């Protein structure tokens, strides 16, 4: 059965809710604080009332009749005994109290001022500015008015005591008014005439008896009387009084604010009347939003929100009872405050200055705003982050035999994860075959969906019948219009991902190859874009569920489409580590191979015939050189000139390697010149074939030569060791000398540095030089075929510094970019004298890793190493946040057909992307010009074109053959487009059968 027609949300309106609306939408009024009765049934009009929705499976919702899972739940409501303030709006309430009249509730602005602010508001709204700024300015202006411009009422200062108490600071009659009057009526130094009561009576126009009563303290003068007396006696009879504004007072006050005035403050009167900020009715969230869980012992454990609601209802009940019983004002006020506290913490339990409501265990409750906030809140965790079906995760391991476009998937995953196929006349046969295999046979099916929307599970029992084999009910046979959820098979496209997904190459589409064993298998050349290794890394796979998604993944997301990185515009996929060592061995010194060897080297590639031999050796046997063999992989018309990592010039002419060593700089990931050129000139398919074949050839090559690194490879002759010791000894002497100069006060400081700093710099330099020359001595003593040297030179792994540290001298350790100088007072370790500035005492490690470190050296080394670890930890969090902010700020930007860059509201950010509309993917960031105009002119003017077709091909935009499936090509090379070199016909890929 299909669900209701899905509705697309067009827009979302925000606003406050009218209490009437709360009552209307409420499924029930909640009056009982209890949840379940003794028999375990929910109490009517209690917090778990069945009309609020169902959470227990099998029960029916008393409001909508649906069952748990399909009923979203329904709100209830609590009638609050007295209004309370909504904590979220305390600042706005304060502002409104200060900006409106205490008598007529109108905004304390003159007509002209109102006009002005309305205009301001409109403009800011148009300009997308901060509305609150205008509101604040308007209130600031309104606060200046001491008397209401509309009704003339005197205004008082409003004090706000956080979080939810407001006071009106009023001038009221003091308790000692009679004494003050008496003092004022006595003669003073300046004015020696006393005022008698009759005089006062005459002046104020009051009865003499009343005056006497006042003077004796028997009668409290009313306000006008007080004013008259004050005027007559020139005395102040008032004191400041904090008159607490109860929420009900505030509500009354706000109710009278006219809509027009509310609008001036940027508040939308239709959707949000200010009095709605004072709650009289509290909505009760549906039970589905606060499900209770049953513990193992059968006890129910309620959600935090339910606990809070229980508190609210209890207090509410007590409040009402007390009020009805006519309890004293003091008790009522206390209860009111308590109710306010509970409603406050119900909405936000992290208000500063208010103790958070706690669970019995002492844990603060997670109430409404805590549910929304932060990384684990509703917004970031549940709404922005979605959970999906059809995904798998497991450990990855390398497999040099799969293409870089492919991923090896274990059968167990392939049978669990399915792809939805819509059955048509054209694939009916296939669909039935999948279904017939059942859920356990490999290319089988797990579910089918009939045209009426019913979903059927395919089981061992019904699979034959569903596929129309044997005795089958015609209506129950998979046919056109059905959907079949079939297993993954070879050639299916899936999305593959490794976290952290820092760039778009962290999520790429691969073609499935179903394999035995338990891991996902990856070609090692795709490690750089994912930043993956195989020390236990896990990756995720997602099966795509509709044709659009699959087509998009094939065209845009396949690994071969992502060979170029948009960060620097060169290839990010290419040979790595042993591949580089392999090509280096193959081409460095251009070794010779006989026919068997040459064919063995090429057996992983599509090359099956050798060219003419390069010559014959002394035994008369034909040989092929490493360069010739490498050249076989290159496109025929390739011309490249580059410099290798080893430093020699690499020249490729017409697809032949003429000179040079092939290593990281030419075929490596991160900008290998040949890979980059093939990708840009011949397209992704050719580049994929090339990378696959280079990797394959390199593996054969490194196996041919053999390659291993052991501890003996880091040893150097005795003489060299002595030389190194001497160098270090000299450095020590130099340091001693520097210290002596310093201590004698003869050291001259460098410009802008103190003498101490100068000394440190000079010592560091001396020791640095010592390490370098030790390294050089070690280097001189290495054979050229030392594997560590090969790796460093070819760029496969490691560098000469690593080698130096292993063989000669580890060198100075640093903390905070300085020699180690922390630990004890004036010294690093208790082994040294205070103020010892020598190399030893500040973390110079003179041994090599192979020789082993002294305990002190080891300790200093650990100090330096620890800093590195801390740095990494801090950096990941900092850069993660930077990335999040950048993405958040830029995520809406899109290049348009007219070349501009706009956000999703059509605001132009750039008139032309990057000032020249050049794609950062296609053009390396290291080149000055996107197009080689000179080269084109040269070619047009100098080259003779064979025929017009050739010329046209050169002139026109290169339209490349679309290649959508490596798997399909391999099965039927004729259909696979124009490329002659198809994927490697390796053992695993050939025999895959659907039936």
């Amino acid at each position, binding site marked *: 059965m299909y669900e209701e027609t899905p509705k697309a949300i067009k827009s979302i*309106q925000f606003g*406050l809710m009218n209490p009437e609306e709360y009552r209307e939408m409420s499924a029930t009024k909640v009056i009982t604080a209890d949840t379940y009765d003794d028999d375990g049934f929910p109490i009517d009009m209690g917090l778990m009332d069945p009309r609020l929705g169902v959470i227990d499976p099998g029960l029916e919702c008393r409001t909508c009749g649906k069952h748990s899972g399909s009923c979203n739940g329904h709100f209830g409501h609590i009638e609050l005994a007295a209004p309370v303030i909504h904590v979220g709006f305390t600042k706005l309430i304060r502002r409104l109290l200060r900006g409106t009249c205490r008598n007529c509730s109108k905004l304390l602005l003159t007509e002209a001022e109102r006009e002005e602010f309305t205009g301001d508001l409109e403009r800011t709204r148009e300009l997308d500015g901060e509305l609150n700024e205008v509101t604040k300015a308007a209130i600031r202006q309104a606060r200046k008015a001491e008397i209401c411009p509309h009704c003339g009422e005197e205004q008082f200062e409003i004090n706000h005591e956080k979080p939810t108490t407001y006071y009106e600071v009023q001038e009221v009659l003091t308790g000692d008014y009679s004494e003050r009057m008496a003092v004022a009526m006595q003669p003073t130094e300046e004015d020696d005439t006393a005022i008698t009561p009759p005089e006062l009576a005459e002046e104020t126009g009051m009865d003499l008896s009343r005056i006497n009563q006042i003077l004796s303290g028997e009668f409290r003068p009313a306000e006008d009387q007080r004013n008259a007396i004050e005027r007559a006696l020139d005395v102040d009879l008032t004191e400041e009084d904090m008159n607490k504004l109860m929420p009900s007072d505030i509500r009354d006050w706000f109710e009278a604010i006219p809509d027009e005035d509310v609008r001036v403050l940027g508040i939308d009167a239709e*959707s*949000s009347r200010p009095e709605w900020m004072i709650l009289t009715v509290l909505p009760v969230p549906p039970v589905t939003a606060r499900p209770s869980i049953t513990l193992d012992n059968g006890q129910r454990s309620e959600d935090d929100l339910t606990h809070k609601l229980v508190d609210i209802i209890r207090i509410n009940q007590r409040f009402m009872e007390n009020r009805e019983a006519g309890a004293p004002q003091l008790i009522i006020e206390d209860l009111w405050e308590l109710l306010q506290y509970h409603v406050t913490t119900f909405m936000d339990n992290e208000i500063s200055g208010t103790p958070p409501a706690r669970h019995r265990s002492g844990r603060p409750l997670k109430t409404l705003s805590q549910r929304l906030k932060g990384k684990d809140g509703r917004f970031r965790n549940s709404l922005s982050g979605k959970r999906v079906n059809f995904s798998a995760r497991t450990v990855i391991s390398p497999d040099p035999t799969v293409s870089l476009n492919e991923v090896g998937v274990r059968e167990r995953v392939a049978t669990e994860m399915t792809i939805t196929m819509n059955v048509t006349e054209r694939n009916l046969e296939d669909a039935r075959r999948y279904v017939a295999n059942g859920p356990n046979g490999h290319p089988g099916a797990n579910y089918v969906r009939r045209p009426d929307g019913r979903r059927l599970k395919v089981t061992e029992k019904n699979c034959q019948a569903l596929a129309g084999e044997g005795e089958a009910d015609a209506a129950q046979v998979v046919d056109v219009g059905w959907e079949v959820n079939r297993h993954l098979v070879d050639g299916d496209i899936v999305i593959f991902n490794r976290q952290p997904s820092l760039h778009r190459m962290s999520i790429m589409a691969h073609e499935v190859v179903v394999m035995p064993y338990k891991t996902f298998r990856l070609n090692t050349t795709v490690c750089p874009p994912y930043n993956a290794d195989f020390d236990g890394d896990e990756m995720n796979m997602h099966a795509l569920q509709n044709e659009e998604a699959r087509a998009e993944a094939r065209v845009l997301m396949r690994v071969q489409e992502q060979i170029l990185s*948009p960060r620097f515009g060169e290839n990010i996929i290419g040979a790595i580590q042993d591949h580089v060592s392999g090509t280096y061995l193959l081409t460095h010194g251009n070794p010779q191979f006989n026919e068997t060897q040459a064919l063995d080297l090429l057996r992983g590639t599509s090359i099956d015939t050798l060219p003419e031999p390069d010559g014959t050796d002394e035994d008369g046997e034909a040989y092929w050189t490493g360069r010739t063999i490498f050249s076989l992989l290159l496109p025929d018309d390739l011309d490249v000139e580059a410099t290798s990592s080893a430093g020699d010039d690499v020249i490729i002419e017409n697809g032949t390697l003429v000179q040079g060593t092939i290593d990281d700089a030419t075929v490596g990931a991160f900008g290998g010149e040949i890979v980059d050129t093939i990708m840009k000139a011949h397209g992704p398919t050719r580049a994929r074939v090339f990378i696959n074949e280079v990797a394959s050839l390199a593996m054969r090559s490194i196996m041919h030569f053999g390659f291993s690194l052991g501890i003996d490879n880091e040893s150097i002759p005795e003489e060299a060791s002595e030389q190194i010791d001497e160098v270090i000894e000299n450095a020590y002497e130099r340091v001693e000398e520097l210290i002596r100069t310093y201590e004698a006060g003869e050291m001259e400081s460098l410009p802008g540095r103190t003498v101490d700093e100068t000394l440190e710099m000079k010592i560091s330099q001396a020791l640095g030089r010592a390490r370098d020359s030790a390294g050089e001595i070690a280097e001189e003593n290495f054979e050229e075929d030392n594997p560590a040297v090969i790796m460093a030179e070819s760029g496969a792994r490691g560098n000469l510094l690593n080698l130096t540290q292993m063989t000669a001298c580890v060198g100075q350790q640093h903390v905070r970019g300085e020699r180690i100088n922390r630990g004890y007072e004036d010294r690093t370790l208790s082994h040294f004298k205070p103020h010892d500035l020598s190399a030893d005492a500040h973390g110079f490690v003179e041994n090599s890793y192979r020789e082993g470190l002294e305990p002190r050296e080891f300790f200093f080394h650990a100090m330096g190493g620890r800093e590195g670890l801390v740095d990494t930890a801090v950096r990941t969090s900092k*850069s993660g946040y930077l990335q999040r902010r950048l993405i958040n700020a830029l995520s809406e930007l899109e*290049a348009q057909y007219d070349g501009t860059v706009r956000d999703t509201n059509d605001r132009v950010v750039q008139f032309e992307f990057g000032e020249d509309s050049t794609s950062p993917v296609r*053009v390396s960031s290291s080149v000055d010009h996107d197009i080689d105009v000179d080269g084109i002119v040269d070619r047009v003017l100098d080259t003779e074109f064979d025929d017009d077709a050739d010329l046209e091909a050169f002139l026109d935009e290169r339209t490349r053959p679309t290649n959508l499936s490596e798997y399909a090509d391999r099965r039927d090379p004729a259909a696979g487009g124009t490329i002659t070199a198809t994927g490697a016909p390796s053992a695993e890929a050939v025999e895959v059968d659907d039936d």
Partner: protein
Amino acid sequence: MTKTNIDTFGVSDGVQSVVEDSGLPPRLRERIYRSIGERDADTDADAVERVVRRVEAEYEDNRVEPLEPVGTVSAQSIGEPGTQMTMNTFHYAGVAEIDVTQGLPRLIELVDARKTPDTPTMKVYLEEEYATEREKAHEVIWKIEATRILALGDVSTNVADMRVQIDLNEDTLQQRDITPSEIAEIIEGAMGVDTVHTGNRVEFGPDQPSYRDLLQLVEELREIVFKGLEDISRVVVRKEETDRGEEFVLHTEGSDFGSVLEIEGVDATRSKTNNIHEVYEELGIEAAREAIIEEMMHTLEEQGLDDVNVRHLMLVADIMTSRGEIESIGRHGIAGSKQSVLARAAYEVTVNHLLDAAIHGEVDDLNGVIENVIVGKPIKLGTGDVDLRMGSIGGSAD
């Protein structure tokens, strides 16, 4: 492009008319002219046509794809290398004397658009006559570097007489072009005390004899800037190789760009500061954009990440400046000023954004990316921004 400009390449009118007819942008046309002009100014029209076609083809091929989500790509291209940067504040490359924040902290600082950087610094170029002579360069330095009393002489307190005594150094005074009477005047003006100066000695004391006041005066005295700019604590001169040959360049610790540009001898056209807000105030928003790009690129280069395409940095700089003032990337800037309530709520300070939206009766039209992720609709970017309709090839629309 103007006619005179073309003429400088010396190409024939025939060549010109073919090239001008193409849909190429001026920068490419100019390069075709230059390239052809260098080889053979009278290349026949056919060949020129071929060149133009090929260049056009490559130009089209290299353009950004319409509907490409360039923003996200740029953000990733800057954020991803962030994981490879150091947290350390290391020394400035060429100038070992001045420490400058580098690496990830500096990148964060730029993106935050902080009012003042952690380590403000300027690179001040000098006008020709000042740039070649060390003496003249120093004249400028004394106008820039803040001169406080300790640089001019020794300060001592005479407790017996309750006086502060300054013994000025004759040479430094001359060097920095200031006289004892000027110093006395500045002290009087700044501290409101009466000074007595005889020769190179300036003396003053508190109104009432009080030991505390006396020490207080000394403290105050140290803070007074007699010459130069208050914010600039140190200036270092270096001889550097520039396009004008070898010249003296000043590097400062502290930045006060506006004041420095006014100083005589300073080449205002080339001097720089690393404080983008000062650039904005003095030179305007376009200069600030340029400064952001340059500073970011510089920071990346320092870390060996010079391969990041400038176009990504341009986009970041553009979005930070496109409203006419510098906006930070984050809660107080771009992310906080988004139109969509949901987008803002999903970023930071969730609850406040929702409450404010309620008060203002805001409507979220769900145009952006984050909102549509939240409500579960396709995003209007890339392939989500195109609709395909079934149709037939060639036939008319009915």
